[in-house]
């Protein structure tokens, strides 16, 4: 790690903090003050510390299991990046073709009257630009997840081990969000399963744009397909992942974060 914080160093800090939590818990356990609201923090914090220690020690197993499930699904990050990058290149060439056809139409003296009719071409090219941005966002998101999922899980465990359940909710959420988000690499496969056309087909269809006839046919045929593939299906996929991570977050960190003192408003 360039920043000097490796995931295992963070886990080492987390282990020390879990020890601290345990000791504070046993301190509360033996406190000679017979107030139940205070003393119940003793066993609670002791079990929290043991829970965090278990998470720290199965960290390697979690990382291994994530990679294992990924390879069971038959995808890896390099195939994800190469398919998205290939698509992006196809989109760029289609953009250039559409733009050049537009300028040929509008600058030829014969077809000056066609200039108004060629306006939809501009809209189509800006739509392609949107999709290129979207693909770039997918690539950035994938790179972020791939590079930092280990350290984010480690930080989640560190938050989980803090005393008085300060970071239990957010730590559990951090851990649980990384487990499904790592499945983001399955997105091209998911798109292929959900839609009738594959990404490669879309790419090859876009790269056949050479003249006005194929352009019109492409626009007519491909726009609904593009909307479904690049907007609706990824949103569906991300919302499925978010739902899984919400449920997992509740399972790991408890339903909500709690304040370190009894708070009874009513």
């Amino acid at each position, binding site marked *: 790690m360039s920043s000097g914080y490796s995931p295992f160093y963070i886990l080492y800090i987390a*282990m020390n903090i879990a*020890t601290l939590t345990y000791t504070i818990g046993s301190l509360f356990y*033996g406190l000679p003050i017979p107030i139940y609201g205070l003393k119940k923090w*003793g066993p609670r914090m002791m079990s929290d510390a043991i829970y965090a220690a278990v998470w720290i020690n199965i960290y390697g197993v979690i990382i291994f299991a994530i990679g294992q499930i990924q390879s069971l699904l038959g995808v890896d990050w390099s195939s994800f990046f190469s398919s998205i990058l290939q698509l992006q290149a196809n989109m760029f060439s289609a953009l250039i073709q559409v733009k050049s056809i537009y300028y040929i139409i509008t600058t030829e003296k014969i077809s000056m009257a066609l200039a108004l009719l060629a306006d939809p071409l501009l809209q189509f090219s800006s739509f392609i630009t949107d999709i290129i941005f979207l693909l770039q966002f997918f690539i950035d998101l994938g790179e972020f997840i791939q590079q930092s999922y280990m350290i984010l899980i480690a930080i989640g465990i560190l938050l989980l081990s803090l005393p008085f359940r300060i970071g239990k909710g957010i730590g559990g959420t951090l851990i649980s969000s990384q487990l499904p988000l790592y499945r983001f690499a399955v997105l091209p496969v998911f798109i292929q399963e959900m839609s009738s056309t594959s990404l490669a087909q879309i790419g090859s269809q876009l790269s056949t744009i050479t003249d006005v006839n194929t352009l019109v046919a492409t626009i007519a045929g491909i726009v609904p397909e593009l909307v479904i593939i690049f907007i609706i299906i990824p949103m569906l996929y991300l919302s499925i992942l978010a739902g899984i991570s919400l449920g997992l977050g509740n399972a790991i960190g408890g339903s909500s974060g709690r304040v370190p003192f009894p708070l009874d408003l009513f």
Partner: protein
Amino acid sequence: MADIIQFVQNLDTQVTEVAWSVFILAWAVGWALRGAPIPIFRVKRTGQDLIEDAILAAFWIALGTTVFSLITYIASQVGS
């Protein structure tokens, strides 16, 4: 970077010391209440509870700090 670890470990040691002294205090207070010449059952009962809690706390301090420091030691050996 090592100062965070150092800080937390110092904190660990200090809290453990405080926990042991609190155990002794709770033990003493518990026996004082239990043996007090006051014929009020609730006070004696509280003393009894304090002694029980103190013994359990001492047991868990002894066991827990040993296990946790063992794991931390192994982790530090593996990590470095």
